[in-house]
C-alpha cells in the first residue's frame, strides 16, 4: 500500500509542472496544422524570440470560443465573418492579415458532375447538386465549412439532408480521406489538399474563381477581457508572422515539396 501511495505521489508530481512564463498559447485551425506550415513557422519564432508556442489546432468555431473564454493568447484563423464578430465584441485587440491561399473543389478524376468545364464555383456547385453526386462536407462550422455553406447559399441551393450530402464533422484531413473512400467531391483549402494529395485518390477539379479566396488573419486576444493573457508574447507572434522573415518562411513553405507555395504572404495587400 505504501508503495502505491508513493507511486501515486510521483505521478502527481510529474504532472504538476506549470506552463512556463515564456509560453504563448496559439489557437489555430486544423488547416494550418494539417498543411505542416506551423511545423516550420513555430520553431523559427521560438528560435528568434525565445517564446515557446503551445498550439491548439481545432475548427474555427471552437477556436474563437476558446479565445473568447481567455484560454488563448493569440488566434490565427480564416473565418472573416466570425473574426469580425469576435473583434466587435471586444475579445480581440488587433487583427492583421497574414497570408492567403484559396479553396479548391476536389473530387474523383472521373468527375461525374462534369464540374471541370464550369465557368464559376457556383456553377460547379449547381452541377454537383443537379447530378446528386456525393459531396463530403466538413459540417463542423470551421472556416472551410462556413465558406462552403455560403457558396450553396449564393447558388440558392440547400443540400442539407440530401442522401448524397455527407457531413463528417471532422477536420480537413479526415474529410479528404472520407471523400476519397466515397469518391465524392469536397471543398478544401489548397494547402491541406497539397499536403494530403499523395494519400488520397482525388484531384483538383475546379479552381481560380476569386470567390474561393481564403484569407488568414492573426488576432491578439484583448487583455482587458482577460488580464492573464500573455500580450507580450502574442504581439511578438503577430509581429513575427507579419515580419519580412515570417513572410519569407510562408512564401517558401511547400515550394520544395509540392512545387508551389501553399500560402501566399499578405505583406502590402489590403484586408478584404
Amino acid at each position: 500500500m505504501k508503495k502505491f501511495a508513493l507511486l501515486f505521489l510521483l505521478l502527481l508530481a510529474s504532472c504538476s509542472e506549470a506552463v512556463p512564463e515564456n509560453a504563448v498559447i496559439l489557437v489555430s485551425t486544423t488547416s494550418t496544422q494539417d498543411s505542416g506550415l506551423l511545423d516550420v513557422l513555430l520553431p523559427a519564432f521560438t528560435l528568434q524570440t525565445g517564446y515557446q508556442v503551445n498550439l491548439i489546432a481545432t475548427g474555427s468555431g471552437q477556436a474563437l470560443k476558446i479565445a473568447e473564454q481567455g484560454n488563448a493568447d493569440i488566434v490565427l484563423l480564416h473565418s472573416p465573418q466570425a473574426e469580425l464578430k469576435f473583434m466587435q465584441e471586444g475579445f480581440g485587440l488587433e487583427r492583421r492579415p497574414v497570408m492567403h491561399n484559396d479553396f479548391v473543389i476536389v473530387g474523383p478524376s472521373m468527375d461525374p458532375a462534369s464540374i471541370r468545364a464550369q465557368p464559376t464555383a457556383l456553377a460547379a456547385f449547381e452541377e454537383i447538386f443537379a447530378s446528386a453526386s456525393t459531396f463530403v462536407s466538413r459540417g463542423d462550422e470551421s472556416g472551410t465549412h462556413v465558406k462552403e455553406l455560403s457558396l450553396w447559399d449564393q447558388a440558392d441551393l440547400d443540400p442539407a439532408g440530401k442522401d448524397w450530402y455527407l457531413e463528417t464533422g471532422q477536420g480537413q484531413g479526415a474529410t479528404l480521406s472520407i471523400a476519397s473512400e466515397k469518391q465524392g467531391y469536397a471543398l478544401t483549402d489548397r494547402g491541406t489538399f497539397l499536403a494530403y494529395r499523395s494519400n488520397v485518390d482525388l484531384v483538383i477539379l475546379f479552381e481560380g474563381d476569386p470567390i474561393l479566396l481564403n484569407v488568414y488573419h492573426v488576432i491578439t486576444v484583448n487583455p482587458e477581457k482577460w488580464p492573464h493573457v500573455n500580450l507580450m508574447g502574442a504581439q511578438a507572434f503577430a509581429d513575427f508572422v507579419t515580419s519580412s522573415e515570417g513572410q519569407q518562411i510562408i512564401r517558401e513553405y511547400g515550394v520544395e515539396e509540392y512545387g508551389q507555395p501553399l500560402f501566399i504572404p499578405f505583406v502590402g495587400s489590403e484586408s478584404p
Partner: protein
Amino acid sequence: MSFDREVIQITLLSLQVSGIATTASLLLGLPFGTWLALGDFRGRSFILSIINTGMALPPVVVGLVVAMSLWRSGPLGDLRLIYTPWAIVLAQTIIAAPVVTGLTAAALESLDPRLQQQLLGLGASRIQMILHLWREARLPLLAALMAGFGSVISEVGASMMVGGNIRGQTRVLTTAIVLETSKGEFERALALSALLLILTYLINLALTWIQQRGVKR
C-alpha cells in the same frame, strides 16, 4: 436543447451499434473465457496475460488498425465497410471481446474448484457442468457484460476513425459530443453527455436488476 429527430437517430444508432458489438463480444468471450478458466494446457497463463492486456486496448489503436484494414486500399477493402455502422460494430467488438473474455475467465476461476469435480461426479455432462458454473457465477458474468458494454458505449476514438462521424449515417453520441465541442457548442455537448450517461445508467440498472434477482440477503 430540443429533443429533435437527429438526436433520437444518433441515440438509437449508438445503442444499436454498441448493443450488437456487446452481444458479439459476449458470444466470443463467454466460450473463450470459459475455455481459458477450465482448461489445463501449456501457454494458458500467456494467453491470459494477452487477454488481460487486451482489456486495456486503446480504442484509437483498434480504430487505426481496423480503418487501415477496411480502406479500399486495405486487405478488407472489397467488403466496402469503411465509414459504415458495421465498421464501428467490428471495431467495438474487438474492444469489448477481451474485456468479456478476461472477466469471464476471472469469474469462473474464482469458483471453488471442487464444484467442477462434484458436478462431474454427480454424473453431469461437460455441457451441463459449464451451464451450472455459468449460473453459479452469474453475478460476476453480468458484471463482465456491463464492463464490455461500458467500454464500447463510451469510446470515441475507434468510432471516429472507422465510422467517420458522418451525419445521419455513422454519427454516434460520443462522436457527436466531440463535434459539438469542436464547434464551441458546449451546451449541446453537455446535453448529449447527460443523455449518454442517463442511457448508460438505465441499461446498467436493468442489468443490475437481472443480476441481483434471486440473490438471497
